């Protein structure tokens, strides 16, 4: 992406505002509380968890913490939904977050670009005719991302779907008498199974996928600071979110032109003259 004269590389943009950062922070706290207090039930044979929960009393506290964190997480989610629905910035974020066909293509192109297999073939002189006719399949450049790339969208919607599953099944596990008034035992068993495996999936996704993308990826290592101060530089915007960069640059260019051509600015120019 070429540099735009309208955006300096040193300019600071607010990628996550305070509300979003607090929501993210509450999510971190509640998520890991839920993981730490929940995984022992799944991996009950692990010595570490026996050490973590040495007695029935601690186990009782575990349950209270788990449900407390769940309530807090749900409250956070409701706050996020209200924020998304009623604030202009939230609504805009939501629009940007909507999955599009481009995201699937991006994922494919990014992978092919990273693998570089077709470039390797072309260098070896294989399929020359095909690559000459269809240079797309060489994947010489990575896809261009907007405000949210396919990775971030996948994480966001996974979190949304996962929260829905966990809240639904967790609610019935919390209210087992109600659950068994509505459903037979074998259905309740399925709730328990889903709650456990969905948790494992979420935990692995965060540990592997999210941690790589925001911490261990050489691009960000040791970590992206967006979640702390919410700031992103013009340069980072240009490199990581080129389409957003382009969009902002375009807006500024239009505004500047409008300003130049508007009667007010004409008058100002006249006055100056």
């Amino acid at each position: 992406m070429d540099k735009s004269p309208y955006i300096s590389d040193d300019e600071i943009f607010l990628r996550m505002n305070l509300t979003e950062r607090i929501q993210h922070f509450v999510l971190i706290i509640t998520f890991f509380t839920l993981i730490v207090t929940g995984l022992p039930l799944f991996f009950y044979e692990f010595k570490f968890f026996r050490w973590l929960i040495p007695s029935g009393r601690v186990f009782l506290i575990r349950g209270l913490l788990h449900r407390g964190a769940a309530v807090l997480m749900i409250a956070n989610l409701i706050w996020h939904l209200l924020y998304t629905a009623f604030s202009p910035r939230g609504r805009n974020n939501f629009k940007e977050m909507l999955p599009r066909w481009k995201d699937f293509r991006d994922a494919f192109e990014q992978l092919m670009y990273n693998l570089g297999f077709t470039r390797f073939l072309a260098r070896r002189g294989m399929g020359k005719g095909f690559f000459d006719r269809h240079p797309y399949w060489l994947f010489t450049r990575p896809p261009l991302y907007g405000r949210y790339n396919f990775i971030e969208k996948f994480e966001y919607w996974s979190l949304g779907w996962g929260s829905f599953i966990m809240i639904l099944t967790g609610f019935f596990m919390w209210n087992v008498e109600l659950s068994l008034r509505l459903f037979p035992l074998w259905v309740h068993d399925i709730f328990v199974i889903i709650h456990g495996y969905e948790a494992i999936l979420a935990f692995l996704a965060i540990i592997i996928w999210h941690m790589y993308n925001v911490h261990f990826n050489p691009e960000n290592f040791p970590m992206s600071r967006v979640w702390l101060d919410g700031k992103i530089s013009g340069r980072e915007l240009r490199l990581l979110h080129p389409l957003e960069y382009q969009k902002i640059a375009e807006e500024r260019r239009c505004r500047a032109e409008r300003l130049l051509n508007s009667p007010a600015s004409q008058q100002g120019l006249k006055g100056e003259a």
Partner: protein
Amino acid sequence: MKLRLKSILIYCLSFIFVALLALPSLAQTEEDCLTCHDEALRKNIEGSIHGAAGLSCLDCHQDLRGVKEFPHAEKLEPARCESCHSDLLPEWQKSIHSRTASLGFGPVRCFDCHGGHEVKPKTDPDSKVYPLNLPQTCERCHLGQVTTPRGQDFIRQYQGSIHFRALEKAGLTISANCSHCHGSHDILSIEDPASKTSRRQIIHTCGQCHVGIERDYLEGVHGKDYVKGIKDVPVCIDCHQEHNILSPLDTRSSVYATRIAGVCSRCHDDQAIARQYGLLTARYKTYAETYHGTASRYGDIRVANCASCHGYHDIRPSSDPKSSIHPANIPQTCGRCHPGASRRFAEGKVHLMPDQVEIPKYRVSYLVKTIYIALIVVIISAFLLFIAADLGRRLLGGQRHG
């Protein structure tokens, strides 16, 4: 007058002198014995039941009868209690205490337990066989020179048991001491089928005091098999242990809420026993997988353990209409912890095993589990592939985009 008195005195003294000379040939009295034996012995005998009954030394020391040479032999023959207590002799002769030769010492005799000269009735708090004192009496040998196959620690365990605690702390004389379970005069080796502590007899032995529990046990599935003579069926001691028997509320008890599953699964997770008697296995594993089992493993005592649902002494199969896990009774059984439990509690398996889900709908949960595992594998593999490709390009390709 004075002279006459004097002559009477001389006469008397000479009579006593002659009598004393003739003493050995005459029947001895306690007074005679006391010329040599001290006052303490006399007090002992006077305080004993034999003293109260007016028995003299020679009634027990029959080998002294007719002895003329004094002092008599250093070692006398053991007292022959059976000359009066003849009814107890056959009992003792059958007992292991009369047949100790193979163990390398002489038989255990009456006075070893009851005491010698000071012997008291068993109702006397000072008696060596009074309930509160008996353990100490038995332990004199069984924590000392005698070793049994199970070792002395096994015997010492009794001191930690609820039976001994009741005896020692509360002075509850009806609490089980050695003789309640092992018998007294007729004490037999545990290997002897007639022994009160043999597997065949132990139910009735414990039932002497725990009458209601014996009745419940005999009505349950274990008791019914016990009556049939099946040797693998659990009896009292298999679940409750023996000398170290503790209250179920004691955290160290084998039947404490969080430990009982370990006891039941000794048989109910045993492949050999399961095959022989057609039992289901993996009872523990399938319990541990549930919330009840997991919480219990972490020490939560509020959750259901084996006994909460199946009962304990009168455990019945689910086919029995009186069983707590009969489908009709499940709402009531679960309802003890889950108020308002409906019949829906019965619509499903608690111990769910992948290979014995006879009703198709129960397989759904396994299907869900399989789908989730596949989903996790696929998604995480995709993540790892992306990460590997990304890292590979950045670190090996040396080509940074942008």
